[in-house]
């Protein structure tokens, strides 16, 4: 299971087993979406599978998640999403009413984003062979000729901007799953980011790179980008927005919010000269009200490295977690 946690073990699994077999230049871009050229059009193409327990959680459900997740992967390559697919793997005996609720949620989320779910597949597996329902979605989108968003475009001096507060999705799902009973107002941040990204692109902001901070959270996202682009990235602890209830839950469980999953948070790398304009646009959007600069690309670095400037005034390493975070004893 630890191989699925988004940490170092997962990276090793990808690098040692999967990447070498499929090996090709497009896959090796290591981006959220593959960018391919078809008859002169730049097309972003991506897929993702969704397994979440519970299927319904504060702020969303597996259907909304499956649509937003794939829209966001497309958006992070600078694409305007166009069409999605939907494959369902349903466990025998799963409630039809719940299935209907999930599919309606997918349709509603897709409609709001202005995309169509145009093809799909449905399989049923024996009772006990699945957790209710698993969803796979794939998506394509189109990238304007003048847009080039890629980890390899990250440059020394780039400002790193975050659109919202951190760690809400992971904590909301965990509290619901484990039935932890303490008073809180934490909802998943699950949201479609393609609209806010298109606003930035249309305003002409020169985006070098973007990354949505899903599994593994902000720390893992930044470390992956630092490693791929071979830069030293420095983040500033005091700038990181974290909701008070999320912080409390993390304190109780012994979790580090920087490694907790988000479904509506992303970072942008923009030239320092554009950061004010970028922040202004983000802050006018409902998904960017808390937008803030959280760091900077300091220098090139052979292996890639992320450090955190702590409130105490020292700088420490941010490292990939080994596997999943486990609650601490005391």
């Amino acid at each position, binding site marked *: *299971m630890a191989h699925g946690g988004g940490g170092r073990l997962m990276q090793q699994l990808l690098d040692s087993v999967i990447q070498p077999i499929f090996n090709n230049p497009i896959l090796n871009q290591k981006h959220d979406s593959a960018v391919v050229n078809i008859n002169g059009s730049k097309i972003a193409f991506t897929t993702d599978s969704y397994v979440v327990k519970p299927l319904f959680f504060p702020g969303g459900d597996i259907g909304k998640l499956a649509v937003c997740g794939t829209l966001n992967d497309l958006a992070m390559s600078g694409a305007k999403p166009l069409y999605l697919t939907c494959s369902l793997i349903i466990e025998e005996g799963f409630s039809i009413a719940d299935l209907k609720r999930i599919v309606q949620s997918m349709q509603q989320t897709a409609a709001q984003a202005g995309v169509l779910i145009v093809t799909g597949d449905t399989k049923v597996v024996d009772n006990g062979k699945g957790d209710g329902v698993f969803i796979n979605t794939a998506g394509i989108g189109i990238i304007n000729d003048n847009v080039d968003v890629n980890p390899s475009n990250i440059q020394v001096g780039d400002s790193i901007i975050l659109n919202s507060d951190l760690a809400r999705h992971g904590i909301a799902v965990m509290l619901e799953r484990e039935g932890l009973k303490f008073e809180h107002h934490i909802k998943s941040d699950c949201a479609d980011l393609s609209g806010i990204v298109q606003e930035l692109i249309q305003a002409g902001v020169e985006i070098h790179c973007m990354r949505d901070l899903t599994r593994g959270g902000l720390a893992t996202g930044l470390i992956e980008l630092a490693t791929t682009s071979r830069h030293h990235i420095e983040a500033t602890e005091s700038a990181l927005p974290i909701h008070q209830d999320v912080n409390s839950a993390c*304190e109780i469980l012994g979790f580090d919010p920087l490694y907790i999953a988000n479904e509506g948070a992303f970072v942008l790398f923009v030239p320092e000269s554009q950061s004010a304009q970028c922040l202004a646009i983000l802050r006018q959007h409902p998904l960017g009200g808390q937008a803030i600069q959280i760091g900077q690309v300091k220098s090139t670095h052979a292996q890639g*490295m992320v450090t955190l400037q702590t*409130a*105490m005034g*020292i700088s420490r390493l941010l490292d990939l977690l080994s596997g999943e975070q486990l609650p601490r004893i*005391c």
Partner: protein
Amino acid sequence: MKYLAEYRDPATAKKLVAAIASITTQPWNIMEVCGGQTHSIIKYGIDQLLPDAINLIHGPGCPVCVTPLEYIDKALAIAQLPKVIFCSFGDMLRVPGSHHDLLGLKAQGADIRIVYSPMESLTIAQQHPDKQVVFFGVGFETTAPATALLAYQAKQLALKNFSLLVCHVRVPPVMEALLNSPNNQVQGFLGAGHVCSIMGYHEYLPLAAQFQLPIVITGFEPVDILQGIYLCIKQLEEGRFDVENEYRRVVKEQGNLPAQQLMQTVFEIVDRSWRGLGNIAASGLALTAEYNDWNAEQRFSVANINTQEPAECRSGEVLQGLIKPAQCPEFGTRCTPEHPLGATMVSSEGACAAYYRYRRYQNV
């Protein structure tokens, strides 16, 4: 967050750093006993803020790290039995036994469940009368009362399908053992705040007097730790050796008396071996004979498992302050959090794991 934010305030921390520097006239070795303190020190970089003359030695207070290999092997032997539901705190799952770990067993299909509160395992036992439910009780005096309550309730309810694998440890004997070691470097202790919230600090008074060294009961936030260091250095510089309580908002001298009473009802004091440190007299807590029917070691006949520690891990030297983690030749090469050779690399509160996570590159 109230009661937290003020103890992480950088301005207060900076004032304390300056105060510590102003009273330090010579080199001192201070040990923080608890792994939670070690984690905070490395995470916030507190040791980097201190004058060079102050050397922090990272103590043995990480419950996950010091649980002996023998008990991990016992846990694995029980957890892989059919019809057993094995309940454990989350961070014990990654601790390697002789051949594998609980996470690995779980992946192979064993029913191993992470519990947030030990009491959850009692509910699981009541919900699954056809299964044997076992709780793995590890840790210091902080977690021992919850295990004691669990055993007490299981007996009251006469639960037949529930038992406990108990390997609790006590802090004062390990502090004494470190001070008695011919290699001892420790000149002052930051006492483990949460342990003292249960046990109080009266046990430390004879220790401070006998070894003539200051003990400051200390919390876990940066301001707590700096305040603890300040009080400890002040005593050392003035030639005093008292027990002081920095963590007054939580710790009282007598501790939590009902919790202590419950522990006395359920547990007896036994000798116990510590991962990395070896056998320490009177340093463990085990179920008394009255609780034999709920003792998993008896029920599953694993009492005869007696694993010895491999010699290549130098965590004993790290725990005594003889070497820093990065001075071990295996650090970060053959010994990593994915493949720990021993105690201090296995949990995030272990000194080696904390250095690995936050300090791997020398230039940071």
